[in-house]
């Protein structure tokens, strides 16, 4: 007996409620934008400069006491939060101390770290700094720039690739789904105020890759079915294609999520934000390749007559498949 995620063959109509789906997406995007406008992103030090110190002590953490101990040092904006994780041992108490960038372009000085260490040692004897990361404002500005360029480049490269392999309508549909995924992911990071740092950019790009993976598989099938069913309306061909690939879509999403969830639960708190972004992205990416990319393809329409050689212009790479 085989494990089946979905029935042997399905014939859902994915476009019957397309207004509802696009509506949901639109609402989520608006909420994301609103949150971004109102409270922005909780940028990590990579992007706004400053210092984070990860402390570890055997005594329980009193955030107020930590704050009071650091008060006399006049470090400016200091935020302290306790970190909880199932992988910690009983007497392992971890806190993250974040300090705003000090005035000049440089990272924090060693003496300041020493001072902070001494100050915290008075409230939590034997406290250890297991990691100290400090980024000067000069570099963080550049990192933002690089990150934005990276995401834009990735989307641009993909647009070109799909354009070469399919038709421009496919490329637009795929890219719309990608932008949708990226916007929603940034949105959720703003809504939940999860720390947004360089690793999240990596996660964003992976989401781009994954979502695309899904979209391309569906589109590949659409292309094939367009050749097979020359007379059927586009909506029907799209529906057939999505239904045919649905089993694969679910299988891949589930195996990927299986892996990611185990990393989320067991992988420790250092990469939890990163893994969260990916889990979110896999779910959103799967959704968007069906409900966003395909719907847009339906809107834009596709040239149907594949027999005439003139129609394959701009599509000369479409025949390299086996």
């Amino acid at each position, binding site marked *: 007996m*085989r494990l089946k995620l979905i029935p042997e063959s399905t014939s859902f109509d994915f476009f019957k409620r397309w207004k509802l789906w696009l509506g949901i997406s639109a609402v989520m995007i608006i909420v994301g934008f609103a949150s971004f406008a109102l409270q922005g992103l909780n940028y990590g030090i990579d992007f706004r400069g400053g210092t984070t110190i990860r402390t570890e002590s055997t005594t329980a953490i009193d955030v107020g006491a930590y704050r009071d101990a650091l008060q006399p040092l006049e470090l400016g904006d200091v935020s302290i939060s306790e970190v909880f994780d199932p992988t910690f041992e009983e007497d392992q108490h971890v806190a993250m101390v974040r300090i705003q960038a000090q005035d000049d372009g440089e990272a924090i000085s060693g003496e300041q770290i020493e001072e902070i260490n001494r100050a915290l040692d008075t409230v939590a004897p034997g406290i250890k700094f297991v990691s100290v990361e400090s980024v000067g404002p000069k570099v963080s500005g550049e990192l933002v720039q690089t990150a934005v360029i990276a995401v834009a480049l990735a989307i641009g490269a993909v647009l070109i690739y799909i354009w070469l392999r399919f038709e421009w309508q496919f490329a637009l549909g795929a890219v719309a789904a990608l932008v949708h995924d990226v916007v929603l992911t940034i949105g959720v990071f703003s809504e939940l105020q999860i720390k947004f740092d360089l690793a999240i950019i990596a996660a964003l790009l*992976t989401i781009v890759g994954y979502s695309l993976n899904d979209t391309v598989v569906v589109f590949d099938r659409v292309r094939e079915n367009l050749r097979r069913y020359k007379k059927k309306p586009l909506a029907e061909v799209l529906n057939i294609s999505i239904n045919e690939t649905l089993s*694969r879509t679910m299988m891949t999403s589930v195996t990927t999520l299986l892996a990611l969830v185990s990393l989320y639960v067991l992988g420790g708190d250092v990469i939890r934000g*990163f893994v969260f972004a*990916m889990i979110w992205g896999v779910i959103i990416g799967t959704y968007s390749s069906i409900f966003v990319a395909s719907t847009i393809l339906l809107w834009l329409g596709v040239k149907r007559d594949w027999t005439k050689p003139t129609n394959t212009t701009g599509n000369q790479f479409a025949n390299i498949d086996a």
Partner: protein
Amino acid sequence: MLQIDLWKRVLIWLVCVTGLLLALPNAFYTRVEQANDAAAEITLRGETPERLEVAGQWPSFLPSNLVNLGLDLRGGAHLLAEVKVEDVYAARMDALWPEVRDALRPERAEVGTFRRQPAPEGQIRLKISNPDGMTRALEVVRGLANPITSLTGAGASDITVSGAGDILTIELSEAEKLASDDRTVRQALEIVRRRIDEVGTREPTIQRQGTDRILIQVPGIGSASELKAIIGTTAQLTFNPVVGRGSDADANPGVGNKVIPSLDESGIYYTVEAAPVVTGEELVDAQPSFDQNGRPAVSFRFNTTGARKFGDYTAENIGSPFAIVLDEEVVSAPVIQAHIAGGSGIITGNFTIEESTNMAILLRAGALPAGLEFLEERTIGPELGQDSIDAGKVATVVAFVGVLVFMALSYGLFGVFANIALILNIGLIFGALSLIGATLTLPGIAGIVLTVGMAVDANVLIFERIREELKAGRGPARAIDEGYSKALSAILDANITTFITAVILFAMGSGPVRGFAITLGLGIMTSVFTAIFVTRVIIVMWFERRRPKTIEV
């Protein structure tokens, strides 16, 4: 149909076996690491029984390349420093001033009196009392310019001199500034490298980034502050008389002498007098140059006191060697050919141009040529790194087992075939990482876990396709064949697009993010290989043996 040429089969299995062999050392990480370290010690410092024993922990016929662990896993410090190249401009101008003064003095009749005016750093401004003599003044000062030696600025002169009214301005030319920046950063890089090598940590990364930045990553060091302290210390350069030369590190040097190793000849030790003749503090300059025979050499110059001491010593010791000692290592021990008066000399030896350039840099390396500004620093404690490794291991194993079980439940025997491919895939990723000496970071582990999840995608595509073909009434062999060929275009498109993003990540990212891009990119390549070729070979072999009338996927 359903046939694979023998040579293809052999090749596919050969790739798998090679990959697994390359991955093998990582399963015995500590042991192989110790063995490698011991082997390195042996080539550097000679054999001892203990070292041989440790080196023997890992058989030498097996591959011994390991995956490097990134700072976030091993613990250590990371610094990004900017070299303040402008520091050098000011020093150059200050050095030029006496020359300008001496050159203009004889011209007073025409130029009148002149006085240095306050000016921004890196400029000399002169006010001359007789503006009509400006043309002459410019001519004289321009006569002090030197042609630029760098490749890009060839033909240009190193200073620009301009006059406006009664003010004469001298500054470094743009071309010279570029050349000077490059020299300064290279020199700083060389000094930083030396400082860190002295501490002898494992695999430090010291790279130039952009035009004026230096990236320093040192695993296993306590904190970034410690690293900064190491970089800040200055080199000790001394010139000592040589007493003897041998290969015994523990030789009895005699009173007032000491035994120090040679810098580039391993196993050679010099006995030198402990009291130096001259020290590096008295050195004002060292430049790469050539000797009379056109061989690369290094010329150097002492200040007045150094010149006198050096002159006296060389006059008395013609024919005997003296050692140029840098940080307790003998850089070279030339024989004094003649009395060296005037405080400048030349070091000859069997140098290449590169070596002479480096040595000149080292000789000037008393202190950093310009200040360093630390833009970014990260310290990761080894405990945190170990915690991350442990958590990553557990997560990977759980993810792996979850996917294996899921695949077997979903596709039965074919799922098991895919699982074999998946296991091979992980082996191949580690093999490839070890082979290219890539660095594994925490996001890199996430990349592997993601690959585990996504690697089955290609097989899922194929299996689903086989199912469809079976449903369409094709026979088993035909269905398998069609399944593979029809799924291929989707697999390639999907993986190429993901690969594009991995490449962009690699190009744009740094550190941990780059580590993620590497595992993701390699994972895509290996998973396509295992999904398309390995499972196919397995299925074909199974099919040939069983010849099933019907198959269930």
